């Protein structure tokens, strides 16, 4: 419905714009989303960012979005439509929109694009992402402390650097406080499929996992964890309502401030293509409130980690760390550089299973 509506308005606007050029028009800002805005996870948080934009700059801008856009050719079509309809700044909010964004950006040099979680930039394409892995360090620590079976289940989406980084960061943090901990990873090859995510959660629980982490977008795993009486975390959004007893904490994406900053830059003409990668410190990643199921000393430990990551005194990837095959990645005291992190395609030593490629 909404898709239809926005496509129709898009088409109508394209026709309208062909006839007349409006003076002092509001800046049109567009978003494309991978899931529905009601996923209560990844897309929901981006849409909260869009709403924050409306609230802050509503008199100068006009926002629109298209939801549930598949990655690939469909994305290119929707982006072209948006650009044709006079949208001057477009946020593309999924990794798989990377090439479509670059392709469409070439055709519309006067439209500015912001691509989330990717690494390809152009004169009119910026990239932005959050250091979610810092959040993974904090919840990995909590998971390592809370597991009784020493088995942590991890529902992963696609083997892209962002997801691999999350698994590694969580594993290292859990391992540091619980040497016996094991990670079981299931790749579901989808961002959003509640049924499949629930099946994966059940399979992990069956294999002894009593804490579940996820890198998929729906709250299905949390619901299953609640039902089975084990622990899980909110992903992208707080998700407390889906598992009041099961949810230990959450990693919350906070896009609003960045969106406002970038739109302001367009409005006053200072927008330039750049790469942004912010973490807990600038507030792009937030850690959700701790459940009172977590003992006080663990809460304090997690808080200390969060604080250290925020002020830069700690780094999620501090050597000595070996790769899964046993070769040295970081020597003692060495910290990971952003380039390696951005293209991470290996498990660290201790994670079981083979990383799909």
């Amino acid at each position, binding site marked *: *419905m*909404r*898709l*239809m509506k926005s496509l129709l308005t898009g088409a109508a606007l394209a026709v309208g714009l062909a006839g007349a050029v409006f003076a002092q028009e509001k800046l049109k800002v567009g978003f494309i989303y991978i*899931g*529905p*805005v*009601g*996923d*209560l996870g990844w897309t929901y948080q981006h849409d909260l960012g869009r709403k924050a934009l409306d609230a802050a700059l509503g008199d100068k801008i006009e926002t629109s979005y298209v939801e*549930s856009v598949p990655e690939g050719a469909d994305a290119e079509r929707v982006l072209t439509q948006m650009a044709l309809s006079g949208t001057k700044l477009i946020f593309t909010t999924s990794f798989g929109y990377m090439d479509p964004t670059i392709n469409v950006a070439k055709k519309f040099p006067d439209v500015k694009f912001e691509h989330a979680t990717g690494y390809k930039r152009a004169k009119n394409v910026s990239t932005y992402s959050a250091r979610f892995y810092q959040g993974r360090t904090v919840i990995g620590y909590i998971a390592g402390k809370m597991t009784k079976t020493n088995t942590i*289940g991890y529902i992963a989406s696609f*083997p892209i650097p962002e997801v691999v980084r999350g698994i590694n960061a969580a594993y290292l943090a859990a391992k540091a406080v619980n040497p016996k901990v094991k990670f*079981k*990873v*299931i*790749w*579901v*090859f*989808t961002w*959003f*499929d*509640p*049924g*499949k995510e*629930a*099946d*994966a959660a*059940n*399979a*992990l629980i*069956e*294999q002894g996992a009593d804490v579940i982490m996820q890198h998929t977008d*729906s*709250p*299905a795993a949390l*619901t*299953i964890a609640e*039902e089975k009486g084990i622990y899980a975390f909110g992903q992208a959004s707080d998700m407390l*309502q*889906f598992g009041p007893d099961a949810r230990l904490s959450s990693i919350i994406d906070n896009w609003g401030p960045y969106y406002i900053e970038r739109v302001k830059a367009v409005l006053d003409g200072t927008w330039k293509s750049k790469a942004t990668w912010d973490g807990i410190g600038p507030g792009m990643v937030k850690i959700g409130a701790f459940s009172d199921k977590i003992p006080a000393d663990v809460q304090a430990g997690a808080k200390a980690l969060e604080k250290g990551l925020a002020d830069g005194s700690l780094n999620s990837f501090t050597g000595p760390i070996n790769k899964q095959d046993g070769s040295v990645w970081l020597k003692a005291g060495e910290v990971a550089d952003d380039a390696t992190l951005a293209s991470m395609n290996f498990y660290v030593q201790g994670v*079981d*299973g*083979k990383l*799909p*490629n």
Partner: protein
Amino acid sequence: MDLSSINPVVLIASIMVASTPILLAGIGELVVEKAGVLNLGVEGMMITGAIFGFAVSVETGSPWLGLLGAMFGGALISLTFGILTQYLLSNQVATGLALTMFGLGLSALMGQRYTGTKPPSFPKLDIQVLKDIPYIGRMLLSHDYMVYISLLLVAAVWYFLKFTKGGLILRAVGENHAAAHALGYKVVRIRILAIMFGGACAGLGGAYLSLIRVPQWTEGMTAGAGWIALALVVFASWRPWRVILGAYLFGGVTVLQLNLQAVGVNIPVAYLSMTPYLVTIIVLVFISGARTSAPASLGRVFHASH
């Protein structure tokens, strides 16, 4: 890797849970197509059923009323398709696609109040005598009622199509609507009823997802299950029992590969993930060798004046 750590009882249980939504939607669509109507809106009807079922069971506290609500919701939304295609003679493919979009939008709108609500839990078959049968007792006879209802439904559809006069008429309408009309059968009325049956079944499948498989409401939560159900009908070459085979094969391989990953089987994950689709394609290739039995009037527009 330790395959013995996969508990067959639990595995079978999760396979049944994963297969039941597509089985329900698939058997409904089979009846629709047997009547000569191609309704591509299964996804939209499923998601509508998912939210109707969820809302009704949350409001009344009864999962059974929820299922009734889901059937009602699915049938109601399919009726719009029925009226458009049967009375206003719109194109079935386009109308079906529109029905999917409509269902997704409508359910998102209706569901806004229900995100994060917990539905009442669904009763399981719990008869001690049956459970005590060694092995198969717990493996096959202790699931939620809907698993058995879905199987009974397939049996009922098979019986109806094969042995009853009503079934014969329905098939006649699907094979040659002009001849059926000439014999005095109400083609349009029969098709509307079939469409509503399909809608009710798809609604039930959706509600199974939102009340039992995941117990939660999330927008777009069917995530393509409706399209799988559509493929199932072709896979089954329009024969009811084969819908069970297809649904359990697809659900089974999906769940099995997740479990194999969980125990750390040393097969590249990409292969595991593609197996459900691969197996489906292979079976389709074999089946297509045999004579197919698509209803002859499938998807064709009927008007008494033609």
